[in-house]
């Protein structure tokens, strides 16, 4: 009896749909990429262990305070007395009322400045704050 030799099969992964998959990934990354043009004034954030994420990216105002006491809100350098007006305008914005204020304060500053900003925020009724910190400590 003769055994017929099996035909050699050539296993190959079909690569026809590879470009489609890659394109899908590509589009995802293209859409989710944000080119930040501005990162604020340099601040060395303090470290903390139990930190939580900001509830969302939208409707967040960033208040920077650097080592020398320069205050910057979003992308404008402001003086302490202007803070409440700016924050109030943000709170009163009809389309995007401010939800959270992220405080990016330098770890070397002292509490008198922090307290002053607290007072300004209270005046503007921007009460939800988040002390920005890095993981560690």
């Amino acid at each position, binding site marked *: 009896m003769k055994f017929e030799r099996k035909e050699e099969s050539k296993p190959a992964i079909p*690569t026809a749909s*590879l*470009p489609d998959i*890659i*394109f899908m*990934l*590509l589009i995802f*990354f*293209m859409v*989710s*990429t*944000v*080119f*930040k043009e501005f990162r604020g004034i340099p601040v060395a954030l*303090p*470290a*903390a*262990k*139990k*930190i*939580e*994420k*900001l509830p969302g*990216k939208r409707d*967040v105002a960033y208040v920077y305070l650097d080592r020398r006491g320069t205050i910057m809100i979003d992308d404008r350098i402001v003086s302490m007395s202007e803070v409440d007006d700016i924050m109030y305008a943000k709170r009163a914005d009809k389309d995007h009322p401010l939800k*959270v204020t*992220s*405080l990016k*304060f*330098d*770890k*070397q*500053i*002292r*509490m*008198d400045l*922090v*307290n002053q900003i*607290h007072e300004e*925020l*209270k*005046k503007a*009724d921007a*009460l*939800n*704050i*988040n*002390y*920005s*910190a*890095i*993981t560690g*400590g």
Partner: protein
Amino acid sequence: MFTEKRKGKSSEIPTASLADIAFLMLIFFLVTTTIDVDKGIGLTLPGKGETKEVRKKNIMNLGINADGEVLLDNEPVGIPEIRDIVKRRLAENPNILVSVKTDPETGYQVYIKVLDQLKQANLTRISIAEPPK
């Protein structure tokens, strides 16, 4: 003379390198994407002129001086100890509230460390005492 029909040349765009191009772009975007994570310690400030009467026994006073030394209910404690003390007190009395007072000269880093300890103790009722005028 010109009657010979031209042989039908295939006019397809070669797609073999399409995957390579897409890969290259993919890698570029993978590298440049920074998924920004904004993390921090959340807190809600009291409203202007909003004061609440709190029973004495529910309050723990926490003071931080200019040198970063901490006084918890009139006893000096180290910052890493705060968590366990507050946790214990919270187990005894779930309504406990910690009032944090700071000196104008206190460093922000110390303040954040203390808040971090309080948050680690799962304390939700944190009060920032208004600075004396």
